């Protein structure tokens, strides 16, 4: 009895992980082709781009900000790097330049948010429009096909680990370390909890916020390159609505939209895997393609619902405890 209760408590605490397992289990019951190692590796590879994007978004959300422009930033990065590679620039120059473009996006956002004190929602809404327009302008609204060398990176392996997964791992560990092991990370949480108090306590709020938006831009650029190396082409709708998926992944992983609460490992990673597992599973079981968004929407809704109910019951338990 005691063990059972402990298990239930553990399951409630790690509800998102349990839900991920539940999703994996139900798809494996529906199709024998789902829960095989090659497909699981596939899910990892497919989710790497979204996960990296969501990691950057987590930083921003932790400071109670939001970045709607990541999808557009991704698009511009894709277009710029594609153009550079096609014009004959070697990859070793194109990649750092693409990363710089992503960080520039973050810097522009940070400038308006920190120096001019416009709320992040408006700033990033504006850069969302401007970025998409800029990308379309540079690409002349045509799709850009990338040379083979780019695709080879996407399918190459290092020590048996596929390149996209390896990049995800590096970003994940670095981000986790920065957030949980450094002063910067602790200050990010402090700002998210209460930025006025953080300022009074002597935390350099402005500098931290600039750092956070730079990280988000950088992650958008890395995520984009990873996706590019798999797709091999930049279409005009590239990265469209990715900002919403990134936010969804972070929130599914337990990050609060009001700042100060959440983590990258396991939170955001599990969130991204969950979204990708659902989409992959629907393909594997041969579901009607028209149903993909319907099912994805319903499952995310269910998960967020379970998560909020969990918070609610935890709060109630706390209240009765203090009352008694």
């Amino acid at each position: 009895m005691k063990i059972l209760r402990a298990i239930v408590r553990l399951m409630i605490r790690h509800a998102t992980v349990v839900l991920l397992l539940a999703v994996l289990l139900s798809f494996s019951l529906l199709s024998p082709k789902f829960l095989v190692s090659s497909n699981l590796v596939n899910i990892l590879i497919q989710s790497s781009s979204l996960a990296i994007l969501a990691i950057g978004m987590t930083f921003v959300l932790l400071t109670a900000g939001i970045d709607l422009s990541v999808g557009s930033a991704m698009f511009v990065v894709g277009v710029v790097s594609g153009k550079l590679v096609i014009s004959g620039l070697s990859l070793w120059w194109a990649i750092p330049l693409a990363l710089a473009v992503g960080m520039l996006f973050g810097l522009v956002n940070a400038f308006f948010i920190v120096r001019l004190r416009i709320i992040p929602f408006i700033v990033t809404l504006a850069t969302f429009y401007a970025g998409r327009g800029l990308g379309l302008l540079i690409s002349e609204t045509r799709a850009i096909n990338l040379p083979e060398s780019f695709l080879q990176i996407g399918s190459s392996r290092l020590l048996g680990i596929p390149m996209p997964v390896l990049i995800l791992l590096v970003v994940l560990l670095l981000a986790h370390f920065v957030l949980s092991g450094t002063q910067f990370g602790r200050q990010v949480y402090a700002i998210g909890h209460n930025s006025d108090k953080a300022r009074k306590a002597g935390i350099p709020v402005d500098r931290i916020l600039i750092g956070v938006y730079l990280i988000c831009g950088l992650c958008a650029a890395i995520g984009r390159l990873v996706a590019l190396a798999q797709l091999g082409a930049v279409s005009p709708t590239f990265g469209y609505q990715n900002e919403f998926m990134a936010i969804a992944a972070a929130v599914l992983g337990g990050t609060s939209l009001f700042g100060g609460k959440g983590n990258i490992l396991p939170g955001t990673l599990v969130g991204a895997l969950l979204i990708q597992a659902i989409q992959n599973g629907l393909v594997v079981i041969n579901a009607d393609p028209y149903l993909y968004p319907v099912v994805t929407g319903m499952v995310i809704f269910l998960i967020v619902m379970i998560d909020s109910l969990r918070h609610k019951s935890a709060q109630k338990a706390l209240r009765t405890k203090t009352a008694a």
Partner: protein
Amino acid sequence: MKSKTDSEALKHNPEAGSSNKLIGNLLRNPENTIVYVCLFYYLVMAFIAPGFFTVNNSWNILFNLMPLMIVAVGQTFVMLGAGIDLSVTSVVAMASIIGGYLLSDMTALVEPVWLRMVMGLGAMVLAGGLIGFLNGLAVTRLGMPAFMVTLTTMILFSGTAIWLTRSQNLYLLPENFVNLTYSSLLFVPYPLLIGLIVISAAWFLLNKTLFGEWLLASGMNSKTAYLSGVPVSKTLVKAYVLSGCCAAVASILYTARLETGSPVMGQHILLDVIGAVVIGGTSLFGGVGKIHWTVVGAVFMTLLDNSLNLLGLSYFLIMIVKGLVILLAALLNLMQVRKLT
């Protein structure tokens, strides 16, 4: 010092004093900045954009404005309650295909056309209200974050609309319905009439009813509102229902104008809607905002789109400029507010 000069001015000429003060207040009031930005922009465009300052284009602006404004007014209620409704685009799509199905001559469900019209339009608004109700319940009863709830209902219902119709449009809508855009009552075109009714109803609800007061209180601080006896949950659910209904009414206008029920109707208006509300000055954090601010915000967004199109800018340049102008408007608004505080 200032009050002294004012009172002296009053002594000499009370009438001029009060009117001067009124104009001064109007000019200095930060909430009017966006109005001046709009006027200034309108004047500049009247000179430089070919065909902007014509009767035809003015009607065009008005017809483009109405649906956007109606959705934004609904969104204002939700934002006043410290929420956000991303699902409005899916409401527009769902209402459009439901209306298209019920109204179309292809299905011809009910014989007299007027009955079909009543049924179809009723069902559209009902569908919007139901989706809003679902959002509201999830936010208040289950304590889910509004952003996530409405994001998932957006994905869910726009997916459903496309799934139900297999991305086919529904044609052959009855004449009376299609003519809605072009016919008028007492020289007022129906879209304008509907827009005016929605604004006045929204203004009345927000300023003259207990619901309005409760909504502002809940948005300002839901905990203190709850402790003071405000039925916070019920109030917020009503706000979401209103937002859904408004989006459905906008869908009626869109569907009538395009003469088709389309499952991707309104797919791109989301950020325009939110932009209109926020540029108008309504706070994303709840409790602060007015209906006429949103109307001005919607006017601004519509002017921007229309004029940039007339200037012959390409689609992507329009997007860049739109982004920059939104930033500029937010900045001007902010500078005014800061000067005063």
